[in-house]
């Protein structure tokens, strides 16, 4: 049986600098042993432990979609020991990847429904995975209307810029990209995410909102969705906690009886209400 603490060896295949400040990059990994790719079958919303030998591990949401074969992508902000070391890495270098871990966005629950995706800043990564999954080929038919509201502080901090342009070209997606403050070249929306949500005013009918972003954004966005009539069962979010093992053993990421790494990170607001407010 696979030892869940041991990473799969992967090679850094491609590094994409996402933002002007250069502290957020997307890393594309390829498995060194081809059979590991099948073992790493994942669902959008799950995360992996990026493992750099000698530095340690960092839990990061998976940014690519399982429909993208041959590689796995993670978008990582430079912050601690491991992520800093990761940002120093070059294409061709070897490191480790553990997982996939956590539950995932509830795809079965989402099927047949209208989906509203709200993302803020760097937390957009696993939402990107979900979007790419839902719009891939035949998958698109399994979901109703898809509305995306995505905001960043300024245009330079938007992730996946090329993809955003591609998505905007599609007629089966309602894409709303906003920035807190634009610049000379910015022709899109300006304004905070909660305000844009109010403006777009997605219908609650047969709809689920998937919200992911900084705490301050979440705090002001939730009331908008409550006003629109969304129930707590139909608002889904993803939690962040300090994690180490990723498999519910090491004991630090629990919120009440649930481990964010194993039982989460994805919870509906109704589920979160049942947990202790300690996150």
């Amino acid at each position, binding site marked *: 049986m696979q*030892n869940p*603490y041991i990473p799969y060896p992967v090679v850094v295949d491609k590094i994409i600098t996402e933002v002007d400040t250069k502290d957020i990059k997307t890393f594309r990994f390829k498995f060194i042993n081809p059979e590991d790719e099948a073992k790493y079958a994942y669902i959008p919303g799950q995360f992996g432990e990026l493992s750099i030998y000698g530095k*340690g591990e960092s839990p990061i949401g998976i940014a690519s979609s399982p429909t993208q074969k041959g590689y796995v992508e993670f978008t990582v902000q430079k912050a601690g020991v491991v992520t800093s070391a990761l940002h120093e890495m070059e294409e061709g270098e070897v*490191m480790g990847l553990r997982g996939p871990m956590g539950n995932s966005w509830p795809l079965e629950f989402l099927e047949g429904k209208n989906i509203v995706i709200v993302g803020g800043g760097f937390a957009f990564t696993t939402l990107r995975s979900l979007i790419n999954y839902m719009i891939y080929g035949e998958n698109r038919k399994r979901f109703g209307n898809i509305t995306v509201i995505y905001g960043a502080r300024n245009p330079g901090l938007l992730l996946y810029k090329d993809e955003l342009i591609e998505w905007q070209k599609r007629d089966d997606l309602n894409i709303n990209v906003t920035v807190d403050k634009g610049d000379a070249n910015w022709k899109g929306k300006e304004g905070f995410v909660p305000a844009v949500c109010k403006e777009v005013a997605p219908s609650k009918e047969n709809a689920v909102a998937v919200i992911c972003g900084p705490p301050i954004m979440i705090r002001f966005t939730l009331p908008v969705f409550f006003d629109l009539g969304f129930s707590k069962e139909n608002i889904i979010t993803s939690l962040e906690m300090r994690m*180490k093992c990723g498999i519910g*053993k*090491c004991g*630090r990421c629990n919120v*009440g009886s649930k481990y964010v790494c194993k039982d989460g990170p994805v919870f509906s607001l109704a589920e979160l209400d049942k947990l202790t407010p*300690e996150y």
Partner: protein
Amino acid sequence: MEKSLIKKDALAGIAKKMAGDFLVWAPVKKEDNVLFEPLQKDGEPFFAYLNSKNAPKNVFFPHTEAMMKFTRTPKGMVFSAEENKADQSVLFGVRPCDAHSFALLDKLFDQEKYKDGYYIAKRQNTTVISIACVQPPYATCFCTSVDGEPVGSEGADILLVDIGSDYLVEFVTPKGEKLAQYFGDAKADAAAETKKNEIAAKAVDAITSKIPAHEVKPILDKNFDNPFWNTIHGKCLACGTCTYFCPTCHCFDISDEVKGSDGVRIRSWDSCMFPMFTKETSGHNPRTSQKERWRQRTMHKFKYYVDNFDAIACVGCGRCVMSCPVNIDIRKVVEDISKL
């Protein structure tokens, strides 16, 4: 399986004989402490102990343990998983409360979905021999309040009960039976069995320290925000003594260590009492003060573990009560909660 009888003074000899054949962990007197340590060739087990200073959980879950190794080569980093192998060994002479803790740890480390091979390998290859508590070793013992028994065999493979001049040897599991030959040919008769039952009943009565451990679960379910939580932690030093000595505490940290081109990934004990335990890279800490940490420890033992595994994560050994440098007494904490 038939039960055996051995003379009381034969015990050390049996432990030493086993130590000739495989690794034997036994209580050993080391200066002023009694610790479970591998029995050395010329070492003497110390069976005149009350209980060991530290919990014997370190046999299966050592303070520090290598998970994998890595080496820098011209072709890049190469790593190798530490093999989950463990030599056949015997843990000789644990108290029933500590044996009970292994059954509780199994629930976490040996879950269906994620198995912890490091723990499981050692657990599977180790035969646990318990020595029952005919008298409660300490006035702080409260095993009977948390589903334990002073003459209980939960978590043990062999149980020894002092019935006067002899030990009654009970082979609890097939793993225990395999070591039957070390305990001689004297078979226990019905009288010995009767004696044991009498002793077991008396031993239960002798435990006078009691806590309402089962009553607090529904109270904890509803009282996460009770002001009561402000009253425990004031004097807590935020040291890890209670958690390090606790037979059921199992939190750990993972870190990498490198020297030259060689490195190792280790896991080592961590503690929910340490402020850094939950601190995130961003600086945010969901458990901001010792209040939240104490609530976590209490909740984990008497609510969360019950929610997840239908068992209280406390065996009533009293080590945390005796070892806490500032005398925060979990018995009083639970008592106080029961009155909320």
